[in-house]
């Protein structure tokens, strides 16, 4: 009896949040999917079902294609740079250096900032009249130019650098935790075996960090798909639409261009991308548990 009451109470306490999740998360996902099959304009209208037409239109829209391929290009570059430098910094900090806490904080601090602040900071740094360029020019190197923000073919690097600046700390922290979790005896055994430190990292330690790599990739990938504020603050999608990302496209279509149907379709494609990343990850995770 007592047990039943206890179970009843726990269900009672949980039910509001479950209801909220059901309505505001899954309910609205369903609603968005529904809207994406209609020809809704400024406001949702369910009286004109058009099937998958919005999706066909979406992939016929040049701006979406730029945004969608930007996501993959940006994501790839960002992951490579973040994982590469994150791991390198973690390995360097792992050498039991002095002032480890200071270095760790320096790398971790940008993480505490919102993407909007990051975007604005890097906009200033990359601005020809305010930032690095004018500083270097002030030293006398007048030939030095950074035109990342104004050149459509390199503007993606501005996004990568700013996102890396913010995201590197997380990767470093995860890698460092992984490195610290490795049994000291492995290092001792390798020392007795006469294996040089770089080979221990390459052949033994980094393979042991495979789960950490997976976690970093998944976390950062999700950040990439969701990335919105960074683009808005740093480039606002420009020059032109060259640094657009799907989330910016979606926002624009829904709230500025009064094209809710197309916007919903792009949102569903983004959700699909997230699921394509998450589902294999969760599958691997649950298999490892067993």
């Amino acid at each position, binding site marked *: 009896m007592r047990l039943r009451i206890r179970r009843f109470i726990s269900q009672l306490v949980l039910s509001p949040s479950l209801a909220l999740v059901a309505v505001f998360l899954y309910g609205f996902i369903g609603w968005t999917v529904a809207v994406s099959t209609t020809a809704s304009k400024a406001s949702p209208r369910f009286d004109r079902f058009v099937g998958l037409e919005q999706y066909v239109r979406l992939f016929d829209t040049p701006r979406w294609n730029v945004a969608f391929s930007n996501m993959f290009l940006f994501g790839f570059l960002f992951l490579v740079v973040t994982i590469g430098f994150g791991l390198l910094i973690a390995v360097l900090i792992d050498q039991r250096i002095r002032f480890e806490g200071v270095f760790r904080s320096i790398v971790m601090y940008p993480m505490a900032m919102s993407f909007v602040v990051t975007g604005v900071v890097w906009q200033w740094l990359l601005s020809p009249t305010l930032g690095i360029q004018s500083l270097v020019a002030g030293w006398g190197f007048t030939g030095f130019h950074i035109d990342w923000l104004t050149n459509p073919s390199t503007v993606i690097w501005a996004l990568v650098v700013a996102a890396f600046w913010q995201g590197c700390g997380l990767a470093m922290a995860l890698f460092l935790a992984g490195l610290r979790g490795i*049994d000291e*005896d*492995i290092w*001792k*055994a*390798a*020392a*007795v*075996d*006469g*294996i*040089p430190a770089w*080979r221990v990292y390459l*052949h*033994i330690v980094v*393979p*042991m960090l*495979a789960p950490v790599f997976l976690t970093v990739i998944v976390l950062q990938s999700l950040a990439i798909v969701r990335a919105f504020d960074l683009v808005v603050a740093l480039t606002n999608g420009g020059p032109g639409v060259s640094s657009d990302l799907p989330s910016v496209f979606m926002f624009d279509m829904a709230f500025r261009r009064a094209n809710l149907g197309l916007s919903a379709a792009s949102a569903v494609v983004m959700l699909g991308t997230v699921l394509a990343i998450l589902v294999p990850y969760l599958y691997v995770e649950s298999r490892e548990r067993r």
Partner: protein
Amino acid sequence: MIDIRVVDCHKSYGQVRILRDISLDIERGEFIVLLGPSGCGKSTLLHIIAGLEPLTSGSIEIGGRDVTDLEPKDRDIAMVFQSYALYPTMSVRANMEFGLRMRGRPLAEIRAVVEEKAKMLGIDHLLDRRPSQLSGGQRQRVAIGRAVVREPRVFLFDEPLSNLDAKLRGSMRTEIKKLHRRLGTTVIYVTHDQLEAMTLATRLVVMKAGVMQQVGTPDEVYHRPLNRFTADFLGSPGMNFLDAVLRLAEGRVWAEVGRTVIPLDRYAFIERPVDGRPVVLGLRPDSIRPADGAEAAFTLDLKATLIEHTGSENHVVFDLDGREVTGKFPAEFGLEVGRTLPVAFDLARLSLFDTETELRI
């Protein structure tokens, strides 16, 4: 021939002294066991010999060469760790091969050595598995295999059996002993398990708080402990300690324990006995047995107050003038609590310690 020489070795971390004044000569082919409670510095000493930790002062020689400042890989040693420390992402074969490859040996030769040693250890059918697919005992074999393939001058074992269950520990112990007999390599083995120490060692080093207490064959250390700590640390159940007073009378030496007087004619004194000197008398439970009527034995009539059955034998606690003494009795010996019976004491196996210094006298 001396294989390893540890000279005046000291180790401290800041103010904390971990090892003091350790000097030890180890002959080729010996099986040295470093034994002591946790925190006694035995593992630190092993790591220092391996070169994994620097010395504060002193020197280490291996094979007549001063290796104090050499890297572990240049010391001609191999080590087996408590946690096995196998490389988890590599197959068993790669684990065993890796060290040899780093030394630039030709691959064909490496393959042959690994196959041979794997066969010897009975792990040749596991060569293509990952460590995570092996049981604890198999992992330990692989760890030993990784050490063996290098054919080093010295094997170092750091509590290799502590992570195994009791039964497996027993069989692995036997195998390590066989392995040592077959290879004839010098071994230094760290453990806190006295059974492992007694069965494996050709010589035993008992340590406490960074100081060597006694070095000797297991027999010597067990039967002639040099101080009370060693006497107490070895043996299960532990040695009986009784406060006594020495008495010299009629040209003979006696120990007075309460109202009981024990003759010490067969005790080999290190110091001259002095009348009235307070001492601690130590007697192993193995030396306290049922009287079988033999004339020579020293017997007392004692009351049994507690009986512990272990299966193979009974541990019987007797009352000796208000002091407790434990003896080992055969399991088939019929006995009940409260009965008084004649008990024989093997006085040749007795130890006497100073009450203050706790050293053997």
